[in-house]
């Protein structure tokens, strides 16, 4: 019981910090890109193979800091 709670907390920390962002991306990719879909909105990228961990992280980090992310 206690162990379950700790695990849930750890999952929360990982999600919050973006530590599991790549796993989330792979999951999203598997769900949305595995079969060919009619209404594919993302036409700009290769829809067959997911990005590598390194490439994904680069893109994720650059994107994150494009707008206002911190204030006073």
């Amino acid at each position, binding site marked *: 019981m206690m162990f379950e709670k700790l695990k849930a907390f750890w999952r929360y920390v990982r*999600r919050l*910090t973006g*530590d599991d*962002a790549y796993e*989330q991306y792979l999951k999203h990719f598997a769900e949305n890109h595995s079969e060919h879909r009619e209404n594919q*909105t993302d036409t700009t990228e290769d829809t067959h193979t997911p990005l590598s961990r390194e490439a994904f992280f680069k893109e*994720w980090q650059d994107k994150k800091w494009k707008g*206002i992310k911190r*204030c*006073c």
Partner: protein
Amino acid sequence: MHKNFKIIIWIAVLVLGVSAVSAIALNRGESISAMWFITAALCVYAIAYRFYAAWIAATVLVIDETRATPAERLDNGRDFIPTNKWVVFGHHFAAIAGPGPLVGPTLAAQFGYLPGTLWILIGAVLGGAVQDMVTLFFSTRRNARSLGQMARDEIGPIGGAAALIGTFLIMIILIAVLGLVVVNAMKHSPWATSTVAATIPIAMIVGFYMRNFRPGRVLEASTLGVVLLLLAVAGGGWIEHNESLRGLFDHEGLTLAWVIIAYGFAAAVMPVWLLLAPRDYLSTFVKLGTVTLLAVAIIILQPHIHMPALTQFTDGSGPIFGGKLFPFVFITIACGAISGFHALISSGTTPKLLANERDIRMIGYGAMLLESFVAIMAMIAATVLEPGVFFAINSPAGVVGKEAIDAVAKINSWGFAVSVEQMNQLAKDMGESSLFARTGGAPSLAVGMASIFGNAFGKSMLALWYHFAIMFEAIFILTTLDAGTRVGRFMLQDMLGNIWPKMGRTSWMPSVIFTSALVVAGWGYFLYIGVIDPNGGVNILWPLFGIANQMLAAIALCVATGILVKSGKSKYAWITGLPLVWLVIVTSTAAWQKIFSDDIRVGFLAAANDLATKLAAGVLPPQKAAVAPQLIFNQQLDAYLTMFFVAVLWVVIIDMLYVTYKYMLGKPVLPITEVAREPSRLVENWVRD
């Protein structure tokens, strides 16, 4: 039975809250326990959240749990991602809570603890939290549009442009004043300077770790970084005592200002992964950890507040900044009560993660209450100091005199006991050579935190705690500085891109260098003037920042009020209308006084004229005469800048009033841009894995 029990609980919370607030407000004794502040704050927040926020969500906004949010409809696995509400709350809170709620209350403590505390509580529950929640809601219903876009779509092009310019100028002034706070904490302090300097290579190590060594392992890298930061705090103490090394880090304010300007430019053109992103992780961890630690220490220790409820400085003669209680306490404490900047996070950023409209109350309203609580803790940390010590640390040399003996005599003449020996002993305890005239809030907050931590966890490490607190503030001030300069750069590139498309390309190096240099020159100018100003600069820059931030809040509330009226909810428009009216009164009065007051410590023009007269008469000491022309120019510039802020504010208000007037008469107005309802397909608790 169950319902009755709940009613009894809430009546108990109400009674407890009323008694705590009365205890704070009516206490005129020697000292009062900080627990009253914590109790009052928690009760006020609980009641406001349970009743006012819930009522706004259900009755005014009519939150629809079954409606798909933009995160669900536009889910792309990148920026639009339906996310667990606690995770969104964490992101949102980390984004809105910066150094503002720590610095503002510390400065406002010159009026006594009461005015600032009341404004933090009332301003947050009726103003700031409402603004954040309502903006989050409207943006969520509009595909996560930004505040500027919503202003343009719903009110007109003028409102949109005003929001854009307002944001840009706030950024410039905010960075300058925060830079000044760091400079004042580091000047002639090898320990603080070396610790703050060490945060830069540490962030880079973390950046390399996350980028190249173990890509994406954010937690491993951040843990390593936090350990290194703690070592840097301890290492600073070693440098302080090392005769050959301490000289490397012992500098005048002006030198440090130039270093920060150079650093700001370098950080803005460097890739984000190298410095900004890793340091942001560190600062977020250190911030959350320290704030939690502070809360725990205050609850364990229950320190006593020594500052009186009200000081004589409510009449406008305060040493830290000039100006009467009304309107300046409401300008000085922006973040923590109401901050226009939050509207930029609540629109655009956070709605892209929101899984369900049901979460809007907790994230929009709740996160602001937590920020308000941080401001209350900053107020406690500043007022647990003996008032004499508080004023000795925070009064600039231009007001109390350069020599310790003069400063102490002056502070004693105000009726606050402090002695040179006491200040020397305190400086020694904190591992500093002097704590006089360290205006800006960071050092007095650090002393306050160090004494609270020292009492709770052992006194032997006061100097370590002090420098930990300085590092803690500096690290996220520098993050705000980097992030702000970068945002300013993007905005400028966007604007210039309309004239010369090539300038708009964010990766074209000449454009990056040119626009970064312009932004850095903007805040660098104000920072430079702030450092050479013998009155400390904070007294000029902080009110300017407050006016700008409240102006942005007023713009956000204008947009919200306009949308409420246009949605046929005029009878509820007061929920944003009342805070708007209050902010307009406060901002306009403060701006009027800052421009036209005859008091040279308040009015920019009066100060400029006074200095010009003295310069012409040749009565200024040579050192002051040398910088006088720059100070005169700056005071005039500040006057025009303030006029500009107020003009922008009034243009938006008149625009909004005109739109609502037309709507009331049944004339055509810009249509409501709310996206049509689509039912949510996310199952209950879907994201709660």
